[in-house]
């Protein structure tokens, strides 16, 4: 190799290798981000279809939001305002940890607890109570993306069932559930039909939140890191929970209960057992609860 060739080869290699002393913006290298974005575009184009992707190992554990995190990091930019919630709350340890990681690796990103301020919301198992807008993106962490796993453990088979839209076994399973349990007994992660085509797991959000996916103004992206799948619900898409005419879909009931903090009777509630053994209920969406409390305080002043 001539010295000239060597010279022309060296800078290119250095550029490719990046700076070994520093992490790239938003942790992932640009090639990986591009791959995830391609998977996201495909997912948006085929609502509810699970797109396989080369899920990277992240600095947080598999099963702890590594899929949602990859979607967030491949999507986020310095102009974004990020909200991270875990089981409804911004202050939960895992939400704090993910927010801290994004802040550390993606300088410029603003973070917020306020749902209306956020441009990107990463969440584990909850939608915020207030409706999202078309300039907001919702990222859901997904533990088990395959809704047919309840009737078929093998990916090689479920893939074919989806391809042929052969959902017979799901319907039979739900029917048997009604016969055995008196209703469809699936609690969180209730299966839904997206855009009249694919049965999808909405991630383990409560049934309360399913309506928030239906015809939502916002884009919803779902990332399963350990299972290496990405899928999406584009804005204004039909998301219908599976049910029967005589056994309709039913959300969690909080009849007669209210939030012990803000008094809300129209939110998803966490049940709490306090020191004296008494049961209380409080809003799962703590940011929404805080805002209501602040509004009350303002009104009283």
């Amino acid at each position: 190799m001539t010295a000239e060739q060597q010279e022309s080869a060296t800078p290119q290699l250095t550029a490719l290798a990046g700076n070994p002393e520093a992490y790239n913006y938003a942790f992932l290298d640009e090639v990986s981000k591009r791959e995830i974005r391609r998977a996201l575009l495909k997912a948006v184009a085929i609502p509810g279809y699970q797109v396989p992707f080369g899920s990277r190992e992240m600095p947080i554990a598999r099963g702890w939001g590594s899929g949602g995190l990859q979607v967030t990091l491949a999507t986020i930019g310095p102009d974004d305002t990020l909200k991270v919630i875990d089981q409804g709350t911004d202050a939960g340890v895992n939400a704090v940890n993910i927010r801290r990681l994004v802040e550390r690796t993606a300088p410029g990103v603003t973070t917020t607890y306020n749902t209306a301020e956020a441009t990107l919301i990463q969440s584990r198992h909850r939608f915020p109570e207030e409706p999202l807008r078309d300039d907001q993106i919702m990222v859901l962490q997904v533990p088990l993306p395959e809704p047919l796993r309840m009737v078929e453990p093998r990916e090689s088979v479920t893939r074919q069932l989806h391809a042929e839209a052969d959902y017979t076994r799901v319907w039979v399973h739900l029917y048997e559930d009604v016969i055995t349990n008196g209703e469809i007994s699936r609690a969180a992660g209730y299966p839904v039909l997206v855009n009249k085509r694919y049965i999808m797991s909405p991630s383990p959000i409560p049934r309360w939140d399913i309506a928030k996916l239906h015809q939502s103004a916002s884009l919803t992206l779902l990332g399963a890191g350990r299972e290496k799948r990405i899928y999406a619900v584009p804005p204004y898409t039909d998301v219908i929970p599976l049910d029967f005419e005589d056994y309709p879909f039913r959300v969690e009931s909080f009849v007669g209960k209210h939030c012990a903090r803000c008094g809300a009777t129209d939110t998803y509630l966490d049940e709490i057992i306090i020191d004296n053994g008494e049961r209380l209920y409080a809003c799962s969406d703590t940011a929404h609860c805080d805002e209501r409390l602040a509004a009350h305080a303002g009104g009283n002043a």
Partner: protein
Amino acid sequence: MGYTAVKGGLDAILAAEALISNSTDRLDPSQVERGAQLLVDQVMGEGGLYAPSLAALAIAQAEGDPIEAAFLLRAYRSTLPRLGYTLPADGRRMRVVRRISSTFKDIPGGQLLGRTRDYTQRLLDLDGRIAAKMQANTPAVPTAIDDEWPSFPSVIDMLREEGLVAPASDELTEPADITRDALRFPAPRSARLQALARGETGFIVAVGYSAQRGMGAAHPTIAELRSGELPIQIQHPLTHDPVTLGRIHLTEVEMINHTAGGVGGATIVGGEETPAVQFDLGYGMALGRNERKAIAMSIIDASMNIAGNSGPAADEEFVLSHCDSLESSGFVEHLKLPHYVTFQSALDRVRFRRLAELSKQDKSHSVG
């Protein structure tokens, strides 16, 4: 009212971090690299990165937890750009420091027991005699590795010449890359071998063992186990000549499977006119000297190669979907995360059903 929501997640995790970082009992990574080589080997294999000093650092940082250490390596690895792929590395070119065959008493090149604990007596060194002896011994001068290193012909090649093992496929298709493309089933063999090579040692050994005990058809014999340094080469981007980047220590196992008749019987090839019976073959490879993993991996590969085989080891989707230590431990341990919302949803279902049953009972009482 009057209830105050629990907050302070950030304070709690910072305090938890401080409990770890304030510990004064951290191992010295260089000590780990020299004194815990087998652990370093295991972590490099499960971490999918050949980097002894980084693995040693990871082990020290992880308080000796191999899964956590492999996790640290993998998370670091995924930030490194993929600059290229090496040329195929042929195990026959290995600078062998240990080599055994269980199929033949003597083999060309001979058996080379090398450094092994296989025939040591497992007595705790309570009186410090072994340690004293080790101190008295002058450290062995590292053997110079040069081109004069003896080469050892492959045992499998000799069986192939006799037609007892199917010839190696000379088809050089581009192998899969499971770090870039998600596994899908049925998986190509290259993806299978990659997944097994990164698999958790304990899981791989247990599944291989299950096949040996009779959960499926596998009666394996080690044709050859070789351990040593293998040169790794890339093609020069301009001259296209092979360039040696360095050497990695690894252990390779070629396993013969010899069940006769029925499922798992030796495969009949050559058509009805000239049936020829051949052994099934399994391949195992582990970074460093992780011999038990390489052996177990070759049993699993052989089990999957046997047409019509059953049992856990032959179940490709079961083994490959569950062998990764980051995935299994991550998901098992995620149960420590809050599940308040999902549990509330489940409570709702159970309470609703109990109410329904109670009202049914009430009705039957009033009728009676």
